[in-house]
């Protein structure tokens, strides 16, 4: 991954407390896992930034490398990688996610 791409990713995750790399947009998610994370965040009334990785093949591959995580969606909170859909859901069910978002 080149420096410009890395910088682009870093500025995105710094732009909002909660940032989601997803397939599609919060209005039109294009994958069930991305949709589920959006639903969870919306149910908690959380403001979040998002990036549609389907728009850019380079970004799609780079975010996987940056997070050392092979799948999308990827959730960041306070610039920290939280996980994908399963982890977000597990943390939501345990209340851990709500704690992080306080």
């Amino acid at each position, binding site marked *: 991954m080149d420096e410009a791409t890395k910088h682009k990713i870093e500025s995105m995750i710094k732009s909002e407390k909660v940032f989601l790399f997803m397939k599609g947009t919060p209005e039109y998610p294009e994958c069930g*896992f991305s949709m589920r994370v959006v639903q969870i965040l919306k149910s908690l009334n959380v403001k979040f930034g998002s990036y549609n990785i389907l728009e850019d093949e380079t970004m799609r591959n780079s975010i996987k490398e940056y997070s050392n995580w*092979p799948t999308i969606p990827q959730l960041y909170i306070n610039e920290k990688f939280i996980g994908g859909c399963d982890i977000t859901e597990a*943390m939501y069910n345990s209340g851990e996610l709500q704690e992080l978002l306080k």
Partner: protein
Amino acid sequence: MKHDYEQKPLSVNEIKNLIERGLEGAEVEILDPREDGVHLQAIIKYKGFKDKSLIEQHRMVYKALGESFNKELVHALSIITKTD
């Protein structure tokens, strides 16, 4: 949603074997709730998950699956990890 696959996705058994090979002694169950062969769920019970964070546990599973995601041989796999 329609998907085009460049290569044939891994079967339930192939995914199960890869995870079991990578995580020795793990009990792996692969479910296919929609019966479409591509939207799958893995339930993995493995002692090695103990004291690991969820991120670390999932990374161990991903490592066992190797390049399957990058090569799009696995389309959608929900992962549930358990220690006992």
